């Protein structure tokens, strides 16, 4: 293991967040050209991680970190091996292009600075996720990607569709995150290890554990939601509501691959079991087919690409689950290839949208002459996506067939699935890359022309990268594919495929795929019509299911609230008091803890009471009687004050001046405030409760009084523990320089408590203030805009 200079890596991990802080100010100063400056951040990150390449390619790993919560062995630590490094390079490398592209795409947008902020934070979260070693850090960054992607998807927050998509993504991926948290905690519990690097070295205690299935399901819950596996795929196409740079970034390098990253990361410890090798290919394969079929249905360029991302993720999960060395190598190659071509194609779609004003493939055509660079990039990426030479996608596809092919039923089935999926992706790739550029130029597109350099730079660079990684496959394998595949497999793996393919069956299968793809491409309109009819016939999908789920949740909450919070003060009060009485009396009665009752009249000896003490008690009693017989509320409030003052006097007499002082003021103020509040209500002069209700309330009151009396008696009969009193008496003056123990405790010994309490006082004040301020007009407005009112009625 190589340990790096911790402060540099930490700085690099924090850099995107720092940049996110200054991005808005910078954008205000420089406009969209701030992209050039901000792109330096991912460049720095890329450079930093690239320096690890030689070590990683030698099979070493880089670790480092700090103690975070030493008492729980929780560290802030990172661990970079082939898998992490490939991801980190993709995130930062594509990040450079995305930042630049954002500058071009959102040029002149009012909230460009905010956008840069969000996307840099997102970059930082994703980077932290792949670099994390400790479980807790991993989870924190995992959820951060959900939150930042929520901000990005909902960037155009004035559109309802955006908000819905953002919320949906957050609910699905955030909910999956909770599964993951539970899974990680279980792994932690079973193995006692809280770091991924140590877990990978620990052998297979997890696979042998009786809790393996639980861990497996929980981890899949996290991975499948994040990587949009069927039937949880619906949030991903909806996330297309985000601005195109976000889509390009989310789909090519980051968020949606986090789930695949997790599966690949845990493959050495969780994989190689029957459950793993069955469930993953089934879900992955289904996702692959469903994704491509849904993609065929779409006419929007971005949606077509989005659904193929779903299917690509399915393919990756399927390959990871298949689990052989060759399949893992194929998954690695495909992941890298996908990042390059999908990123480029999304940016192309954005360019077209930006220049032509529409993304609908049926409305586009003939842009080739106007946008030659974009067209070249699109074509190159589509060729890579279709798996044709001389691009990196070709290597990936050959390796997939090489890895999957076998004569048993299971490999045959998966190979078939891969052929269908790849063939349909071939169709989509070319549909995106060819349809907008060839054919008759529509008159409304006459103003379309090549975008500025910021727009076409990204796709062009990615297309070239796709080409050069394939041409110099020896180098790319040495530094990227082999270390990554070895990390996923947990043992050294060799990848040697180049533009010279695996002659034999894989090449033949490629031929079949291409033939199938061409036939399907020529019939794409017919296919689309069939799919459209089919979807209409089904009429329901997980997307609608999500809405129904949320709606059901809200309705369920309403019906529970209706029972638990009926909105009648009397009922609340009655229930509260009854519960309090039960809570006090039940333990006393059932555990025989009733206090010894004083015997009257000798204990306590009444005749020993001083006259003024009796007088105060009499005042309290008078106050009480006055409350009961008060004929309007104001009188009752003031009479209750009498009783409170009497109690305050008692405190004074028995040596608690501070308490009594406070009690006086609280009584005064509560009388004043209650009187003020009551004058706003209708002061009905008389009690309108029916007689039976009155007796019920009286019984409750009597029981309450009795219960409190018993409790106070019991408390005073306990032996009094003087430890704290002695401590405070001893140290109050010498440590805190104050003679008034009460105040010293409040502001010094337990100052942090008081600090919290005044915070509560202030928040309570704000809350009351806002309650008072709700006037009738506002209340009517709120009632009129209640979205669920009709359903409740």
């Amino acid at each position, binding site marked *: 293991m190589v340990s790096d200079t911790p402060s540099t890596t930490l700085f690099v991990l924090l850099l995107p967040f720092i940049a996110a802080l200054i991005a808005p100010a910078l954008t205000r100063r420089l406009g969209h050209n701030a992209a050039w400056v901000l792109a330096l951040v991912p460049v720095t990150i890329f450079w930093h991680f690239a320096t690890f390449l030689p070590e990683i390619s030698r099979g070493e790993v880089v670790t480092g970190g700090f103690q975070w919560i030493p008492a729980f062995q929780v560290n802030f630590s990172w661990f970079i091996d082939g898998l992490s490094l490939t991801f980190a390079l993709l995130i930062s490398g594509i990040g450079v292009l995305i930042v630049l592209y954002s500058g071009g795409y959102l040029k002149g947008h009012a909230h460009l600075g905010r956008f840069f902020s969000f996307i840099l934070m997102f970059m930082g979260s994703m980077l932290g996720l792949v670099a994390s070693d400790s479980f807790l850090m991993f989870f924190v960054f995992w959820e951060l990607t959900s939150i930042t992607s929520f901000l990005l998807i909902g960037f155009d927050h004035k559109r309802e569709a955006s908000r819905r998509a953002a919320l949906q993504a957050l609910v699905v991926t955030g909910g999956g995150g909770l599964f993951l948290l539970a899974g990680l905690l279980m792994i932690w519990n079973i193995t006692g290890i809280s770091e991924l690097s140590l877990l990978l070295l620990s052998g297979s205690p997890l696979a042998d554990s009786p809790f393996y299935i639980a861990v497996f399901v929980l981890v899949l819950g996290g991975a499948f939601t994040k990587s949009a596996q069927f039937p949880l795929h619906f949030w991903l196409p909806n996330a297309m509501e985000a601005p195109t740079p976000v889509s390009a970034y989310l789909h090519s390098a980051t968020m949606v691959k986090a789930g695949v990253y997790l599966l690949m990361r845990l493959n050495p410890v969780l994989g190689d079991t029957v459950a793993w090798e069955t469930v993953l290919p089934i879900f992955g394969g289904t996702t692959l087919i469903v994704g491509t079929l849904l993609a065929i249905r779409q006419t929007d360029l971005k949606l077509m690409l989005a659904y193929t991302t779903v299917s690509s993720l399915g393919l990756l999960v399927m390959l990871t689950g298949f689990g052989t060395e060759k399949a893992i190598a194929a998954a690695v190659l495909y992941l890298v290839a996908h990042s390059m071509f999908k990123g480029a194609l999304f940016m192309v779609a954005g360019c077209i949208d930006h220049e032509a004003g529409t993304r609908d493939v049926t409305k586009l055509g003939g842009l080739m002459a106007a946008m030659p660079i974009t067209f070249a990039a699109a074509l190159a990426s589509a060729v890579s996506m279709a798996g044709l030479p001389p691009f990196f996608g070709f290597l990936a596809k050959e390796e997939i067939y090489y890895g999957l092919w076998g004569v048993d039923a299971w490999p045959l089935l998966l190979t078939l699935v891969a052929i269908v999926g790849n063939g349909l992706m071939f169709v989509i790739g070319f549909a995106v890359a060819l349809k907008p550029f060839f054919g008759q130029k529509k008159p409304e597109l006459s103003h379309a022309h090549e975008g500025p350099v910021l727009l076409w730079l990204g796709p062009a660079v990615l297309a070239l990268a796709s080409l050069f990684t394939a041409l110099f496959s020896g180098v790319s394998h040495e530094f990227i594919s082999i270390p990554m595949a070895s990390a996923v497999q947990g043992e050294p793996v060799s990848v040697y495929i180049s533009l010279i393919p695996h002659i034999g069956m894989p090449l033949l299968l490629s031929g079949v795929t291409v033939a199938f793809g061409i036939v399907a491409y020529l019939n794409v309109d017919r296919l689309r019509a069939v799919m459209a009819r089919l979807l209409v016939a089904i009429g329901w999908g997980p997307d609608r299911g999500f809405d129904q789920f949320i709606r059901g949740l809200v309705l369920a909450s309403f019906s529970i609230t209706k029972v638990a919070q009926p909105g009648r003060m009397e009922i609340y009060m009655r229930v509260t008091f009854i519960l309090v009485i039960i809570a006090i009396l039940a333990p006393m009665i059932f555990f025989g803890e009733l206090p010894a009752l004083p015997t009257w009249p000798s204990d306590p000896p009444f005749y020993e009471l001083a006259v003024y003490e009796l007088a105060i008690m009499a005042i309290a009693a008078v106050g009480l009687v006055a409350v009961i017989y008060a004929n309007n509320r104001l009188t009752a409030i003031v009479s209750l004050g009498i009783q409170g003052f009497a109690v305050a006097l008692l405190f004074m007499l028995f040596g608690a*001046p*501070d308490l009594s*002082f*406070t009690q006086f*003021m*609280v009584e*005064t*103020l509560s009388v*004043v*405030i209650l009187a*003020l*509040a009551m004058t*706003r209500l209708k002061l009905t002069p008389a009690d309108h409760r029916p007689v039976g209700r009155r007796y019920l309330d009286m019984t409750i009151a009597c029981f309450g009084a009795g219960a409190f009396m018993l409790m106070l008696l019991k408390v005073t009969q306990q032996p009094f523990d003087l430890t704290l009193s002695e401590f405070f008496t001893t140290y109050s003056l010498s440590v*805190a*320089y*104050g*003679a*008034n123990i*009460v*105040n*010293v405790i*409040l*502001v*010094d010994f337990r*100052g*942090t408590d*008081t*600090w919290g309490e*005044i*915070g509560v*006082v*202030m928040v*309570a*004040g*704000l809350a*009351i*203030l806002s309650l*008072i*301020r709700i*006037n*009738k007009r506002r209340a009517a407005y709120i009632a009129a805009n209640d979205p669920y009112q009709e359903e409740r009625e």
Partner: protein
Amino acid sequence: MRTLIFRTVAPYLSSLMVLFSIFVLLRGHNEPGGGFIGGLIAASAFAIYGVACGVSPVRRALHYHPMGISGAGLLMASIAGLVSIFAGVPFMTGLWFYVPAFGTELKLSTVLLFDIGVYLVVVGSITSIALALEERTED
């Protein structure tokens, strides 16, 4: 409640109460008193003034919104706690300074600052509730 006697007495009564509340606040470390009770006294003073003479004179006299005073108090208390971190001792540790002034020695401390913070939070919050209740905006 706006009787002539009450209205005449209220300003004097309120000013005395505010003065008294500051006295109670400052003596709190050694004698019965302190920020909380001082704050309650001052809040009652404003409430009484408001009941007697109406809300707007109180608001004018306070100059700042009571909630703003409350927020300033919370900030003050937080600063009193944070100062100790910069002095290299745990959060909320009291620091004492002895300043010679007026021929005697003034004992200043972050604890006092904290107590003043408590005072302001209580004054602000309770006063704003009382004043809002007195205002009766909606009718």
